């Protein structure tokens, strides 16, 4: 019986070939990526003038996208590290989903920052002539570090599954895939010594990733907070960014849980219980982020310094009001309202809440970056009208959407190649549960 259960688990969790829907999904993502690539080639050819960025708004949706990717990548440390270290066993099926979201997001965070450069061929100057005093250099260091930590945290727990994947190579399909599995994990024999080393390494990584993850989000917030501008001049920014990052990361995991559960029929592994628990996590994080937002806007609004008035009123009732209230509602208020109720934490409503969090959070990043740049302390004088407003050009939209599609494509291909739920870990947990 136990043997059958084990076989069933392996059968359920082995990577599956794309069905018709999967192929359409990949086709759509590839189309977006291609469009983004074409737009980027045009940008390379003609320069950043193809964007709507000018002297004042020099950080547009590229940097908004960068902050969004950096934020969403924090989920790796939340699910894998925090929940692992707190012995929250229920999170086991979610760890790999969280880690691949983290890896794909941090990969595209790095790419999008290069896209924002007018002369990417001079990127190496950042390393040759970078100043250690600059938060931008700290960001480069910490993003690189976080990327490697996330890769290792994805790789170590994957090793036991490699042996299973090789054993069931007939079911996994293509020859090159089997070669890949062999290259990555042929040496894994599931011996006690190997398990001991692997578990120790995962624990070390789980501890290491937390300060690194906090650093990446804090340093990213410092890119703004160390600059004296309305809306950025805040001592609250590090904590504000981290809470927002946890929220969007958790939202993305809920969305991914729902999609993978549906697409791969994983109802026996990603259960309603998981949505309930992640729903509770999400509502807690949304409340926390709402608290930081109240701090971030109520205090300056109470004082309403002349220099910040235009920026704040622009958000509350001015040209950005629609986006501002949309972001606050979709990223926090509506998800809190949905998820605070028990029936709201069932798969579909939780998925909708997660999706709203992700969409709202993207717009929230846009609001952090752009309106501030349009309200400098020194008034704008004798500048073309186009400098006073910002709306992304089609090239910017295409590149931004292409990067989002690229991140989703990494997750999609990963799920095609590797088990999206850890097989060996699931088997071990069931065996331990039965023995207990």
């Amino acid at each position, binding site marked *: 019986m136990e043997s059958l259960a084990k076989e069933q688990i392996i059968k359920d969790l082995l990577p599956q070939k794309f069905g018709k829907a999967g192929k359409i999904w990949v086709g759509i993502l590839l189309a977006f990526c291609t469009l983004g690539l074409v737009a980027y080639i045009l940008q390379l050819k003609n320069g950043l003038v193809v964007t709507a960025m000018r002297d004042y708004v020099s950080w547009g949706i590229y940097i908004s996208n960068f902050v969004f990717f950096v934020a969403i990548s924090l989920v790796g440390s939340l699910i894998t590290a925090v929940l692992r270290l707190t012995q929250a066993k229920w999170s086991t099926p979610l760890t790999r989903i969280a880690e691949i979201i983290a890896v794909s997001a941090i990969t595209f965070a790095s790419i999008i920052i290069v896209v924002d450069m007018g002369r990417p061929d001079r990127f190496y100057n950042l390393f040759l002539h970078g*100043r250690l*005093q600059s938060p931008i250099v700290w960001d480069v260091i910490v993003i690189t570090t976080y990327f*490697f930590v996330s890769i*290792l945290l994805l790789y*170590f727990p994957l090793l036991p599954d490699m042996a299973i994947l090789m054993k069931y190579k007939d079911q996994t399909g293509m020859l090159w895939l089997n070669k890949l599995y062999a290259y990555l994990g042929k*040496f894994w024999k599931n*011996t006690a*010594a190997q398990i001991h080393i692997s578990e120790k390494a995962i624990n*070390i990584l789980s501890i290491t990733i937390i300060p690194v993850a906090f650093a990446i989000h804090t340093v990213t917030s410092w890119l703004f907070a160390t600059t004296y501008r309305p809306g950025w001049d805040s001592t609250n920014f590090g904590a504000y960014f981290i809470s927002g990052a946890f929220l969007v990361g958790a939202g993305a995991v809920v969305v991914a849980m729902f999609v993978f559960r549906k697409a791969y029929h994983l109802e026996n592994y990603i259960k309603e219980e998981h949505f309930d628990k992640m729903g509770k996590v999400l509502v807690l994080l949304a409340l926390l982020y709402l608290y930081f937002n109240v701090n971030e806007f109520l205090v300056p609004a109470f004082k309403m310094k002349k220099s910040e008035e235009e920026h704040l009123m622009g958000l509350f009732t001015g040209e950005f009001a629609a986006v501002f209230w949309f972001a606050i509602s979709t990223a926090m208020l509506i998800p809190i309202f949905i998820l605070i109720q028990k029936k709201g934490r069932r798969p579909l409503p939780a998925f909708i809440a997660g999706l709203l969090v992700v969409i709202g959070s993207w717009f929230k990043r846009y609001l952090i970056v752009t309106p501030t740049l349009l309200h400098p302390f020194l008034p704008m004088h004798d500048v073309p009208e186009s400098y006073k407003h910002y709306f992304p050009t089609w090239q910017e939209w295409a590149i931004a959407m292409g990067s989002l599609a690229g991140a989703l494509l990494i997750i999609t291909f990963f799920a095609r190649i590797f088990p999206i739920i850890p097989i060996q870990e699931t088997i071990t947990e069931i065996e331990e549960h039965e023995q207990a």
Partner: protein
Amino acid sequence: MNKHSKIFFTAILLQFLAITAFSQAEKNDLSLSISYFNSNNHTQYLVAHAKSKIDGKFQMIPNINLSYYIGTEDAANLLGKAVTNDKGDALLFIPPAAKDEWKKSAKVSFIIVSEKTKDFDAAKGNVDITKAKIQIDTLADKKITATLMELKDTTWTAVKAVDVKIAIKRMDADLNVAETQTYPTDSLGVASADFKRDSLPGDSKGNLTLIAKIEDNDVYGNLSSEKVVPWGKPIKYYTQFDKRTLFARRGKSPLWLELLAYSIVVAVWGILIYLVGQIKKLKQLGIS
């Protein structure tokens, strides 16, 4: 010519006169003045000033082309040309070529002439000066003297009863050496002042620059003479330039920052390298 024609032509004539009068009234009078400066008895220059009364207020007039002459308004006596700036001022150093004209007499006349513009008619201004020189000197007990001499025919003669400003030259203005701002010259042409500014910050060696000057004098113009004396308090200038600061260039970051940043990088990457080593160990265990 009938009655109607007379009325018509009279109206046209009045209209023409009104337009002419109006166009003439549009042009304001340009007022030009000129001042003579002699600094340290060797640098001589002229500063012209252009102003006009517009809407009941005097306003400085920029962009006026001025020609400077010495003696008479002849092409041979042209010193040079300059254009007024936003403050209506135009400065011209007296060129060495004017030496012969300068030496002709003890009294010299300078003339400025502006060109006609669409807003102003041509204008003229002049100043007559008597050649003079001022010499600053110091005595024991921090006493300062300034001697004013004028040229009479061919001899330098002391000038008495002229107020001389004796001061310390600072960055933006002159600082009195004592309570009194100006000191009159005596029969020997000497004005005396006591230096009463102890512990005044000087340069790195404690040097101060004393200055004696007469300003806007109707006869002599503006004369000044300077002397450097070690009567100040030496000031050591502290600069953060090219020091290890958060705002310094690359390679000049504060040591605490370098220590902190590199320690974190070494610690975290040390762990990552250790873990990569563990992968190698896992491979070895798998092979054996």
